[in-house]
């Protein structure tokens, strides 16, 4: 089942996406954020909490102060290592606890600081590379079933109940498990610490929670003879830190969108643009597949109307990811089956959109999100809408398939909801496995006309954004009907201009290694 697509339009759209992202890249290159710097600390092994349960990376940053921070946190940690011979993580803790005065390092020459950190940078990257290699080895030994890869969420708020749920889901056929974060975590400017049991609508993303889930899934992977992937969320105020933690704990995927936080969480756009870049560099190097959030356009607005925005956003997200050095194979662009069940031929519309993305982003592991908006308390009807979504996915060869829950409108999934949902996907995908291969779309038919129209309108949208500039377009409400000011929103205070001597050793290492080849 192939759509006949005008390749010239696609090429033009990609060109426009480059033009849109280019000026933002210039901003990114000259700025850093608190979270980027905290991520650097975490990569050096900084962890734990100090007074008031505040995380060490946050406390250390405070002690360094905004003036010195303009040179990058590495500058000061490096100086400490050069002076004391201690480990970078010890420096961070000592700073956090006030046992070390950063002013005393002002005189350590830049070159000494850099030299002192060099082995630690190599060590940190080596650790991540090892995790990545470990994933490769496991995947080879415990091969996954072919895509669409069935993905479910756990969200009890309690990491231990989540673990039970995740293992049960894996046994029931899940190939990817995502732990949904507690409401509000994306808006807090630090990463909580330790195992947590009290979240609302989700469970806190902490490094210990990552570890607990990874261990449980590794365990069940061995038992089932197939590797079960683990996913969490990066987008938010701590994108780079979560990317760092995920790299260290061998998560396999991360929700990571270049604009989600801005549009849907009122996070400052400059903050997000800088954060997403460094976090994606890390994702790229650690072999983590990102999942972008185009589905969010459809949960608040009409799917038919927003379809061009989804496609436009996919082009932009792709471009941002490529610029962070990510290979296509790790760019999980998002889409969702949010079509109105009352719309005649709605299924054909959804098919058009899904197939369009499939052909345009042929090498990307597309992420296909289930119906949510039109799900109601009628679980029987909901199960059917999910079935049509499952059918669309298998027909269009989506890669990452989030299983819809019949109880979507009621509660975060019960254990049995997940089992029923996986059964739904497995059944539909089995009984119609090769349907997509067995048919052709009629030229000029409903599907083809719809796809053409979406592509044309996405192009027009990209053209408008390119003319106006991305930040200005967002300010004008071009995306998701939401208006955000370039200097408004949460986390703006954590954005700063890089000083002339700014230094981020990981950025340098990853950039000079030619990330896409490292990651390839």
């Amino acid at each position: 089942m192939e759509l006949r697509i005008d390749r010239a339009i696609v090429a033009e759209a990609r060109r426009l996406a480059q033009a849109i992202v280019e000026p933002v890249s210039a901003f990114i290159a000259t700025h850093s954020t608190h979270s980027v710097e905290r991520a650097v600390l975490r990569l050096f092994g900084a962890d734990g909490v100090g007074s008031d349960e505040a995380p060490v990376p946050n406390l250390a940053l405070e002690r360094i102060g905004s003036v010195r921070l303009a040179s990058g946190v590495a500058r000061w940690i490096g100086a400490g290592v050069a002076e004391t011979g201690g480990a970078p993580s010890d420096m961070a803790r000592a700073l956090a606890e006030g046992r070390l005065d950063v002013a005393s390092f002002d005189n350590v020459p830049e070159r000494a600081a850099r030299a002192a950190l060099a082995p630690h940078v190599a060590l940190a990257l080596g650790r991540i590379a090892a995790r990545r290699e470990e994933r490769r080895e496991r995947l080879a030994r415990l091969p996954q079933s072919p895509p669409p890869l069935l993905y479910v969420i756990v969200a009890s708020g309690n990491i231990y109940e989540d673990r039970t749920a995740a293992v049960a889901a894996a046994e029931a056929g899940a190939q990817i498990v995502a732990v949904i974060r507690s409401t509000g975590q994306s808006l807090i400017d630090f990463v909580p610490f330790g195992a947590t049991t009290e979240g609302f609508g989700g469970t806190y993303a902490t490094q210990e929670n990552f570890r607990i889930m990874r261990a449980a899934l590794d365990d069940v992977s061995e038992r089932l003879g197939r590797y079960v992937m683990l996913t969490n969320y990066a987008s938010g105020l701590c994108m780079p830190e979560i990317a760092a933690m995920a790299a260290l704990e061998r998560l396999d995927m991360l929700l990571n969108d270049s604009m989600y936080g801005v549009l849907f969480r009122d996070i400052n756009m400059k903050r997000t643009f800088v954060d997403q870049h460094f976090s994606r560099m890390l994702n790229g190097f650690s072999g983590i597949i990102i999942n972008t959030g185009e589905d969010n356009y459809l949960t608040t607005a009409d799917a038919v109307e927003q379809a061009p925005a989804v496609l436009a956003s996919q082009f932009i997200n792709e471009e941002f990811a490529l610029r962070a050095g990510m290979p296509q194979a790790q760019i999980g662009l998002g889409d969702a089956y949010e079509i109105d069940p009352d719309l005649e031929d709605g299924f054909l519309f959804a098919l058009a959109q899904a197939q369009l993305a499939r052909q345009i982003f042929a090498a990307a592991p597309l992420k296909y999100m289930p119906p949510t908006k039109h799900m109601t308390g009628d679980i029987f009807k909901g199960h059917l809408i999910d079935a049509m979504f499952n059918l669309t996915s298998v027909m269009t060869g989506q890669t990452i398939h989030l299983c819809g829950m019949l109880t979507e409108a009621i509660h975060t999934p019960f254990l049995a909801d997940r089992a029923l949902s996986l059964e739904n996907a497995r059944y539909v995908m089995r009984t119609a496995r090769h349907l997509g291969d067995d048919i052709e779309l009629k030229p000029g038919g409903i599907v083809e006309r719809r796809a053409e129209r979406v592509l044309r309108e996405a192009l027009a949208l990209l053209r408008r954004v390119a003319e106006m500039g991305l930040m200005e377009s967002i300010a004008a409400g071009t995306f998701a009907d939401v208006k955000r000011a370039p200097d408004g929103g949460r986390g703006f205070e954590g954005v700063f201009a890089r000083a002339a001597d700014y230094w981020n050793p990981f950025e340098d290492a990853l950039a000079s290694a030619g990330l896409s080849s490292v990651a390839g």
Partner: protein
Amino acid sequence: MNPVRPYGDTLGDGKVQLSFTLPLDWSEAADEAARQLVAKMGFTEVAVSEGRSIASGFSFFVVYASTPVSVDLAAIAVTSLRTHGLSMDEIDALVRARVGRKLRIAGACIGTDAHTVGIDAILNMKGYKGDYGLERYKEFVVFNLGSQVSVEDLARFAKENAIDAILASQVVTQKGSDIQNFTALSELLEADGIRDRTLLIAGGPRMTNLLASELGYDAGFGRGTLPSEVAAFIAQRFSEHR
């Protein structure tokens, strides 16, 4: 884990999903009636997640709620008939060794019930889900009387043909027709004086071993039964008791 209680997403939460129809047009009061009804059943945290008219005078509801009820597993005395671990050859060998003659088996779908697929699955050579039927066993002589066999005919046949085990099937259960027919059969065998020397087995999608024993049967087999499970039971009974 004992006592056990339904599990939603947290141990002990008691979560249950219910759906039902009330003979009412939908209104907010109908939603509230649904809520109260479920609360009156003893559930707590009753959430009516769906309520709507499905026809004039009828509304349909989907409800999630918590039950405080639990059951004590230790008190559940279900002897599993279905775990035996014997192969066809072993079962034949058991009969040869311990009974010393071929066992005569008669099966039928009784009353007006014409659903023979189930009893055929147990009896026919071919069997069910890769498990051979009783006809294939060397030590069973099988008579499959087919469908819509009256209990009188079946009892007569058993008497006249020195049947060791009767296998009666009932698939239609509407208005308790299965219970009526099963009961009639066992009473008739009793009256005919052959109940004692006949192993009496009931089967069908709604049958359980517990229900069968309540009906005075020696055993009952429900959905998903494999022929070998029935064969093993017959062979074991005859090798133990007779």
